[in-house]
């Protein structure tokens, strides 16, 4: 299906995965922007309807969690679930690579490098923590002032972390255009896969690729 000649491209992300990624990206952009507008009073003259702004922030935030569940749980989420198991498991080579901040020679990386794995573990956890703490802030009546205060604090901490993480994610993606192409067009060059993700390259070329790498139906 994909002979390992240099012109061939290797499927990396299915359509479902790419749609999920870009829907998430759009929702995060809205939630993060409106959140910063709230916290720092930015753009209040442009957007004076605070109740609407607040509604957009709250429901976009919850939408992130809901959209992700819709992407993962049904049949079409097979490739995502498969990648989640990859993100979960770290080989000794990957741990070595992370400890050397990517300079370890000869570390044979799988489909995701350890930085991508950290990102992919952090972002969904942060989304859940932000949604939970945000819900306490928004539907605050049943909660004690201590919990509301704690939720406010946690929401701010994770908001800062998610801003830093997303900024880093975008900067790194722009520095590796071939990797970015995997998330826009869905495929990467054979050369890139062999050079940057050798363990994954072996996996998709030596096994039956339709099994190692689910493709769009």
């Amino acid at each position: 299906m994909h002979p390992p000649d240099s012109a061939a491209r290797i499927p990396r992300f299915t359509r479902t995965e790419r749609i999920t990624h870009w829907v998430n990206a759009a929702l995060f952009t809205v939630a993060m922007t409106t959140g910063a507008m709230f916290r720092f009073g930015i753009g209040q003259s442009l957007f004076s309807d605070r109740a609407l702004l607040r509604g957009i922030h709250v429901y976009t935030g919850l939408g992130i969690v809901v959209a992700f569940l819709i992407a993962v749980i049904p049949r079409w989420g097979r490739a995502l679930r498969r990648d989640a198991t990859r993100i979960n498991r770290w080989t000794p080579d990957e741990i070595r690579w992370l400890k050397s901040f990517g300079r370890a020679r000869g570390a044979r990386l799988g489909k995701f490098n350890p930085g991508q794995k950290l990102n992919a573990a952090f972002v969904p956890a942060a989304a859940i923590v932000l949604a939970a703490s945000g819900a306490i802030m928004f539907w605050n009546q049943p909660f004690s002032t201590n919990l509301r205060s704690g939720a406010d604090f946690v929401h701010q901490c994770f908001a800062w972390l998610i801003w830093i993480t997303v900024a880093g994610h975008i900067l790194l993606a722009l520095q590796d255009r071939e990797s970015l192409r995997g998330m826009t067009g869905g495929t990467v060059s054979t050369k890139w896969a062999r050079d940057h993700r050798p363990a994954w390259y072996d996996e998709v070329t030596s096994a039956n690729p339709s099994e190692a790498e689910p493709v769009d139906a």
Partner: protein
Amino acid sequence: MSSRDRKTSRAFAYGRRPYAGPVAHEPGTPIGRRLFLGLLGLGAVGIATGSSISNALARLAKNDPTGLSAILPGGGGWRYYQVNGYPERSTAAYRLSVGGLVETPITLSWNDLLAMPSVKVTRDFQCVTGWRVLDVKWQGVLLRDVLDRAGVKPEGRAIQFTSFDGAYTESLTMKQARRDDVIVAYQLDGKNISTDHGGPVRLVVLPMYGYKNTKWLETIKVTDEVIPGYWEQRGYEVDAWVGASNGRNDAPT
């Protein structure tokens, strides 16, 4: 996953194992899951204990000359709370009515308030949920002066405030209401009070937590006893002195 499972999955080299269904077993340590669950735990612990961490940080921030700490978690800055939306009212349309146990019920317009003797006070604003805004400048009319204009009857021992949001109410005893730091405010930091902040006119009870500071103030009703306000019916203390109520130890404002 049990250690036996892990051993089994390690036995297969990358790409050489049979397809194991939609959730395949990858080789390696489940660091992703540990990180994910660890972060959820951290979030939960943070929600439970963040209040005291945030208070400690706020006390440190009080001595921060740069003001940079205000943007950090636990730092200052307004949170715009409401219980029934952010109602808009222009200064031209604004009316404040004073009634209940008074000699003459009165209605004051924006211009009536501006024509009265004004006071300016600078004080920290402390919310019962933990955030504090340093050195807020208020300008307005002493509540005492507004009350005296209507003339409180001898049996008037407390006040009920209502908001034109249609839901919020608050209360003060007559003794609290006559203090020098209880103000019917129309300016905040040198500008008319915006809708978010409870404008055009809001109550400011400087020595008490934010929820005593009725936003979008519409009526002042003198009563014979304290009628607990919106949050007070939901467990907050009626006498809301900063640092001496609601189980909190904030520095007094």
